[in-house]
């Protein structure tokens, strides 16, 4: 036991000895946490739009006023006709154009359907879809109020929409818990991915091998720094998420901690596998990168797994981050306890055992 502790101590010293390496463990995750948390949002709050109002009546003005008054929209120009619209949208000065035609008020007054034309820049399709849903909300509200105020038939049934777990549909509540997993994953893979190969490159790994340590002990020593650093980093980022970004934490902390521990073990196992295969530090780094990029994209961090084709969805089952994302969002937002997350725990545990075993075998193979 004392022997093992000495080894773990040595691993920590090797990692933290160098000032640049120490900085790299603290600086980038911190910058990423702040920048991502603020930047990674799908919410729109500043949609620039142009108005073309050809309607002389009051209804057209009322319609335009509803857009101008909405906090999500920002009027950038008013045009007399549709002529200049294309230029404004082409150069991205406006995302959408609201066109009220000449007969708008007249049609409304006669009970005929009045049309409101919306032209929207579809270059970013997600932005366009979200902006259209905002426009649709405004038009629906206008309709309901017009019908109520002018004795029209009201709709026989209306939608009463509630969003559970995130009532105001804030992107940030979705993204920030995900970042806890993302940054922990990156740091853990990097630290463990370079651990073995660094010693092999400098030749000290052979020295380690001639000591009485058994392979699993050496690996345990290599795994310890990744585990501790990953755990501390995750805890700090989770605290920032709650206390700085105001993301609620309604579930069980114990459930999160269990998930984190299992996740770290499987991530370290993968990192050690990369480290055992790589011949140089550069290969270790690039290997870690080659694994990380697809793993992050296929984790459900930014785009839902449910939208992926069936075959790709099967691939995600081998990705530890996939399960941790569910655990994070479950404990932060949905109020999950240990019992709710068993379905995420066991695949993580399985992946951990598999990757650790594979790493041990790979290191042993490298020895002979």
């Amino acid at each position: 036991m004392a022997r093992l502790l000495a080894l773990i101590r040595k691993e920590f010293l090797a990692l933290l000895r160098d000032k640049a390496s120490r900085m790299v463990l603290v600086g980038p995750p911190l910058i990423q946490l702040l920048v991502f948390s603020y930047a990674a949002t799908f919410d729109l709050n500043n949609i620039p739009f142009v108005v073309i109002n050809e309607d002389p009546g009051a209804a057209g003005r009322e319609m335009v006023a509803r857009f101008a008054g909405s906090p999500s929209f920002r009027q950038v120009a008013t045009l007399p006709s549709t002529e200049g619209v294309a230029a404004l949208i082409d150069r991205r000065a406006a995302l959408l154009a609201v066109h009220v035609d000449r007969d708008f008020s007249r049609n409304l007054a006669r009970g005929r359907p009045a049309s409101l034309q919306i032209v929207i820049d579809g270059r970013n399709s997600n932005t366009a879809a979200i902006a259209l849903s905002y426009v649709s909300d405004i038009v629906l509200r206008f309709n309901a109020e017009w019908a109520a105020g002018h004795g029209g038939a009201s709709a026989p049934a209306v939608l009463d929409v509630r969003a559970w777990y995130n009532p105001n549909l804030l992107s940030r509540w979705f993204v920030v818990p995900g970042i806890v997993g993302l940054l922990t994953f990156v740091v853990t893979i990097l630290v463990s991915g370079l651990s073995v190969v660094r010693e092999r490159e400098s030749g000290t790994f052979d020295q380690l091998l001639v000591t009485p340590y058994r392979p699993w002990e050496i690996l345990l020593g290599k795994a310890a720094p990744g585990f501790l650093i990953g755990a501390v980093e995750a805890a700090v980022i989770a605290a920032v998420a709650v206390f700085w970004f105001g993301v609620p934490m309604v579930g069980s902390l114990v459930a999160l901690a269990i998930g984190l521990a299992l996740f770290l073990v499987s991530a370290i196992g993968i990192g050690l596998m990369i480290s055992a295969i790589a011949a140089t530090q550069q290969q270790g780094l690039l290997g870690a990168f080659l694994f990380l990029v697809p793993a992050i994209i296929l984790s459900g961090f930014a785009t839902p797994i449910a939208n992926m084709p069936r075959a790709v969805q099967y691939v995600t089952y081998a990705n530890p981050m996939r399960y941790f994302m569910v655990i994070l969002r479950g404990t932060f937002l949905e109020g999950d306890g240990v019992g709710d997350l068993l379905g995420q725990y066991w695949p993580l545990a399985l992946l951990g055992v598999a990757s650790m075993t594979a790493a041990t075998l790979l290191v042993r193979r490298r020895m002979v």
Partner: protein
Amino acid sequence: MNTRRLGGLILKESMQILRDPSALGIAFVLPLFLLLLFGYGVSLNAEHVPVGVVVEHPNPQTEPFVATLRRSRYFDVRPLRSLGEARTAMARREIGSFVWLRGDFARQTLGDGPASIGVVVNGVDANTARLVQGYLTQSWQIWLAQLQQQQQAGTAAFPVAMQPRIWFNPALRSRDYLVPGLIAVIMTLIGALLTALVVAREWERGTMEALMASPVTMAEILVGKLLPYFVLGMGGMALSVVLAQTVFAVPLRGSLLVLIGVSALYLLVALGMGLLISSVARNQFVAGQIAVVVTFLPAFILSGFIFDLRSMPLVIQIITHILPARYFVSSLQTVFLAGNVWPVILPDAAVLAAMAAFFFGVTLWRSHKRLD
């Protein structure tokens, strides 16, 4: 510059790339993988969303509404018996939303109404939740319009009909905007990350000093390093364009020449950044980290590739202005989807050119033949 010496350096550099499987992985495998992933795998368009439907008293009034949901290609309707069952299904993540028609639905719609259709969405993924909400609203409108036609009611339930026209991407396929933006990510990988690592390795191993001791000039060393990676980067772009056009059917409405020109400018900026990073860090681990933080991640997150820049807080928006990826992605999306819109492309190209000049100037100024 001596062409024979330069040729030798380029040959050496190319052999180094071809020999190392990890460099080949970053240069060829990862770009291909990313393209396939973003072309086929990743999508922001939700279809066949599992939606639970709880109908307390099924009757001729509720049936048409449920049928409308069933016909929508966006939904995969799961009938549920009770509200409790819906709650359980939500907690188990089997459904992301449910619709609840109360027992008095028929009486309310036929009588003095309006009946309230309960809709609950799981808001955790706010973006998907908002899209699903939009699809449900669409179905509701279709149902109302049909109802009206049957009853031949005099007044319209929708006094104002919205007529949206979506330019550049009428079907709102997320692939059409993700694949062009991906070219920026791929060129950043090759231009900045790979170059930074490779040059840092030369410093770390001391082979840079060996190069300096030889008669080659600093300019020759730099050009010898850059040319192979420039070719790799343009190759990555060519691959992306071919795949985008053939496999993913992304339109290219602008001219290919403009696309190549802007891409070459961006690649120069990326290479310049890679060189500068490696000459500052001179250590692979640190150079790799810096390259990821200042080049790769911004190309992903702060470029408009996935997240719209206009929604970001002002401070972040200002930061994006000093990052080259932003200008490239803006031009890419425009050239692919909108065409040669000069008021977008010319300013972007000018900024990229200025940035390229800046990075090369600083790198040249920093890298005299000097061993410190």
